[in-house]
């Protein structure tokens, strides 16, 4: 799909060179459509439904404020006051049981004001078994009704392994490993994958989705040296050495699979596979299995290896090891590193991102630039630590400045600055790439 989009956009750009734009005119408003986003995630404590009106020219107010929930819906006009139910069509004591979803209260957004959440939640859905059917019914205030039905997927096993390891926690060698996923389904239409930096053990505290894929097969192999090919991702390695990653493997029903694999052609408006009656969007279901990856690689650059960082930071003796791996596809010294040891607020085991580069004038022996950032989470909250120094190829340890920013309340930080010693203690010697 990505390939096709690139091809078409490239061709289109060629043609547009020969074309000219037509004048922009105002067109009448059209009737809005109820947009539904809801995925029953089997095992999740709560289920939710997001309701928005489609964009019709009635309002230019749409905003992206973060993951929904907890953020309010806002990429269309959030629908308030709807009557939303989920009806269980399985067997047992819950048969034909209907659950009414509760609308989350309005939220005040800076610069926007108070907005409806557009989100309806429940934690009372019956325990779900593979093959069960759950029906969604949405009745908006204006009387519009949207219906959907999902079939709950299930598996006998989800097996994720590398050449040498199998299980929930895996070490993946970027250059030498592949990640194998085998699923033995009971009921499933497709597999969905999501690979993200571990949000806790990543410098930005968010992680972000690094790579997603859906397939209608039940097994899959990812090469360890998989590379993104979206320009926004800068062609980076999907499995980033020196980082902790979360691999989510889900079996999905048809509705979810069609939701993620299809899209509307921007010219014709057709192509999206919609399984809702009376609205557009998704009401699907997935069963997710989480796997945690520690990604390593060969360390054959002189900058790679094990570094010891020691000194007094924020009046505390700190002594950590950075296991540093250059990003294998970038040539600007960007790296990630596992961070282990004793730090400001106690033991730390996380991942750092940084850059270690030589300026061209100092390539032979002069000082380079070493910058690394990592985040720690403790009972005191989150703190960010930035270490900056100017190492030289010719010498060993070097002094670095540590800047610590402790989040004392949301978006409010206490900063401190200290000096530490950074020393490379193991790694390849002078095998410059």
């Amino acid at each position, binding site marked *: 799909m990505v*390939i096709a989009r690139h*091809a078409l956009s*490239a*061709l289109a750009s*060629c043609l547009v*060179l*020969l*074309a000219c*734009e*037509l004048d922009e*005119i105002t067109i009448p408003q*059209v009737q809005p*459509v109820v*947009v539904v*986003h809801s*995925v029953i*995630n089997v095992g999740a404590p709560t289920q939710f439904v997001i309701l928005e009106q*489609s*964009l*019709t*020219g009635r309002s*230019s107010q*749409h905003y992206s404020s973060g*993951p*929904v*929930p907890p953020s309010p819906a806002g990429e269309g006009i959030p629908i308030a006051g709807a009557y939303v139910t989920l009806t269980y069509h399985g067997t047992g004591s819950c048969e034909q049981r209907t659950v009414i979803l509760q609308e989350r209260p309005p939220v005040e957004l800076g610069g926007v004001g108070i907005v409806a959440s557009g989100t309806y939640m429940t934690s009372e859905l019956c325990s779900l078994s593979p093959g069960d059917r759950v029906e969604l019914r949405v009745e908006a205030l204006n009387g519009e009704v949207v219906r959907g039905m999902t079939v709950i997927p299930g598996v006998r096993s989800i097996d994720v392994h590398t050449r040498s390891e199998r299980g929930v926690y895996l070490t993946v060698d970027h250059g030498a490993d592949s990640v194998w996923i*085998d*699923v*033995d*389904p009971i009921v499933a239409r497709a597999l969905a994958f*999501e690979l*993200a930096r571990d949000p806790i053990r990543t410098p930005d505290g968010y992680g972000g989705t690094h790579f*997603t894929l859906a397939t*209608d*097969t*039940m*097994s*899959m192999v990812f090469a360890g*040296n998989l590379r993104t*090919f979206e*320009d926004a991702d*800068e*062609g980076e390695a999907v499995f980033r050495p020196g980082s902790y990653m979360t691999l989510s493997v*889900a079996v999905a029903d048809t509705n979810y699979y069609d*939701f*993620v694999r299809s*899209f*509307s*052609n921007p010219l*014709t*408006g*057709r*192509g999206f596979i919609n399984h809702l009656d009376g609205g*557009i*969007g998704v009401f699907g279901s*997935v069963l*997710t299995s989480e796997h945690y990856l520690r990604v390593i690689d060969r360390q054959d650059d002189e900058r790679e290896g094990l570094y010891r960082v020691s000194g007094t930071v924020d009046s505390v003796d700190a002594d950590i090891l950075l296991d540093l791996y250059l990003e294998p*596809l*970038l*040539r600007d010294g960007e790296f990630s590193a596992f961070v282990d040891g004793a730090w400001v607020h106690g033991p730390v085991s996380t991942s750092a991102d940084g850059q270690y580069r030589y300026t061209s004038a100092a390539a032979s022996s002069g000082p380079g630039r070493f910058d690394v950032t990592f985040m720690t989470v403790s009972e005191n909250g989150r703190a960010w630590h930035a270490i900056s120094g100017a190492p030289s190829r010719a010498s060993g340890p070097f002094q670095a400045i540590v800047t610590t920013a402790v989040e004392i309340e949301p978006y409010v930080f206490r900063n401190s600055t200290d000096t530490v010693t950074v020393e490379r203690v193991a790694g390849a010697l002078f095998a410059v790439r």
Partner: protein
Amino acid sequence: MRTSALVAAIVVMLAASASGQTQGADSSLLNRQANLYVHAVPLEIALRDLSLRSGIRIAFSPDIVRGPALVSCACPDVTVRDALDSLLHSTGLVYAEMAGNVVVGPPVAAPGFGSSISVAGAAEAQQLRQVSGRIVAGENGPPVVSALVRGLEFGSRANTDQLGQFVLHDVPPRQVQLVVEATGFVTDTVTATPIQHDMTVVLNRAAVELEPVMITADALGPPDRSRFDSTTQISAITIQPADILNIPGMFESDVIRAVQLLPGTIAKNDYSITYNVRGGEGDQNLVRLDGVTVFNPSHLGGLFSTFDANAVERVDFFTGGFPASYPGRLSSVLDISLRDGRRDGLHGGGQVSLLSSKLLLEGPLGPVSYLVGVRRTYADAVVATFTSYTMPYYFTDAVAKLHVPLGSGGSVALTGYWGRDDLDVNIVSSVDEANPAAELREPIDMVFNWGNRLAGLTWRQPLAGATVETRASVTEFFTTLAIMPDMARWDNNVRLLSASSDVTFAPGNHHRLHVGAGVEQYDMTYDLLSPLFEFGGQPGNYGGLLPLFNTDYHPTIWSLYADDEWDLSSWLKLRPGVRLEHVPAAAFTGLAPRASFKLFLTRDKAVIGSVGRYHQAVHSLRDQELPITFYEFWIGADEFVPVAQSDHAVLGYEQWFDHGIQLNVEGYRKTFRNLVIPNSAQSLRDVGNQYRPMEGESWGVDVLLRRHTGRVQGWIGYGFNKTERRAGGESFPPAHDRRHTVNLVLRAPGPLGSELGLRWGWGSPLPYTGLNGEWSHRTYRLSEHSFGSGDTEPISTAINAERFPSYSRLDVGLHWDFTKWGIQWKPYLQVANVYNRRNVFLYVFDYGSRPATRSGVAQVPLFPTFGIEFTW
């Protein structure tokens, strides 16, 4: 005025009848009812009409009856005698009944001829024979198409067909002289002995080759006229290189752009080389180069066609009722013939334009003639020079033809074509914009190329009065889209191996039978591979790894066909035919009967009609709603994909006027069954659900008024069409459902000694699928059980429920022609879309703003180009 022996005999006989005008007072022929009504027509026409209406063969020499005077006769209820008395009054001509014929001639005695000659003349009239033959270019040369064969001393005429064959009727049973004329050849006169019924005539090329179309049109009559005279073929138009080269356009002369201007044909926009014929889909058009199928005959998504107009000899376009010998397509046949290379030394030519250059060489190699042409665009460089854009695209193509004469008038022709488009796009840059000097990473590039290549062998051999034509060919469309370095690769190959052999012969005086057999073996493969991924195991089929995607189709089509051009009488021609196709992969055996007729009202007027069934075992899976076609995604019939079927019924009228003016009016109705469209809900793993079935109908009227000769030539084409499709429970007009289409194409003397080419087109609104709002297609995060932001996507209305504004465009071109340094130069200047009409290409809606807005992209703007052609 030449005096033929036959006329002399008639004259003597008429003289012997003294003052009486009839030879027998109780003649039954002359007492028949005339059924004639003519007003102010030439005598020749009146006599032909009388012959047709009364059913009596009336013999006369055209040279005798021709003259400026016009005659009239309101004679529906009178006898033939009375009608002739009326028509011949004051002409000096008399008539007589002889041996079942009525002959008309001057009442003058011919010295030296006696009554025995009168008897011989009558016997001649009884024993008129047929002479057939073949015209070839040089010893063992290729057939000469559209040559004119006419009696030197009698009125019969015939034109050669694609195989260079002719059948001359009503030849006197004695030694006669036949005149053979053809474009670019020295006119020859040959003798046919009294017992000769078959001959091969070798024509020599003229020392100085004049512009073909001028000679053809003015001296010999256009191919369309010879087709009108000699066959029942309906819905057929021939375009010659001069026609194509003088149609102004955006870049360069283009065969398919010319075809798009013919009635019955709809081009959805300026950018698309795809065309729709009489309500059919784009994939229902068979495009052949010297008999070899070309799958995707376009470059740059349709801006250029793959055919160099300078290498083309002629283009025959059939919008319906095409002969049984053509392999399966439902809607049209575009049959492009390459020229043979010249035999009178090395010649060449070329063109340099803003965006491309081409070079063509031709000449003899011993007895063999060759023609080689190459072309390459440099639009990428031009765009980079004059704009801030990058156009990472170019194409190259080459065409070649070898003609090898064999003994006994046979020949072998080898045709080859190779063309490739290259589009290379950097996806991930090796540098950051902030610091372009430092290489940051290994770049990621998209390498996209596609093209056609083909080779075809045609062996023609006269054999025992028949002509055997055997073809073998391989044609391939290929495309590769790769994400480099070595990340993913998409390959699509469509290959067709075909062989056919057919025989054309004339059993008896009034039949021309064409029978043949063929086989086509398709191999269509789609492969998406990546070393970075492997997939495996379908639900319920645990285990086993697969590539990302692959599918293939391998239909084989066996065919038998026959048709008979049957001259039932001088005023009625029939052409019954049948094509039998067997597609084992689809368990399909289909009989496709076809029949056409031509009823001559006069020599220049005819009612024409055709009915037939057509099958098509290959389809293109593409979104017909998209305004542009990158290329076709071909699939073939198998256990899931059906063989498509269409029934045609065409009824029309054709008339030829003086000055080579042709009027053709045809009404048609077509049905479409078992069409396929892409299934957006398809699963890559579920074989056979890549398509959804579709059916439909179309009907309409096409009108062509064309002038083939004179200083001002061209045509006005009008098409009315109504087309409907049904799929998935919906009934809708397809994207090419244009109700009215008008095209005017003119070639005339222009200012400053130039030749003017003009093309004006108007089309009523085409349908499109409107958008009814937008929605955010969010992304679901498995690990967080939440939705993130998404891409805004449109919500559509009913399929093709809206219509664009009407279309209009005027193109003007000027060509000059001079010779310097032994080279003929033809500089040209063209302006496309002279009045800069902003024809809508597509609309862009924005429902995310308040109020909602619609903008769009126009088609070709005012676009001047210039260049120069040269030949030596």
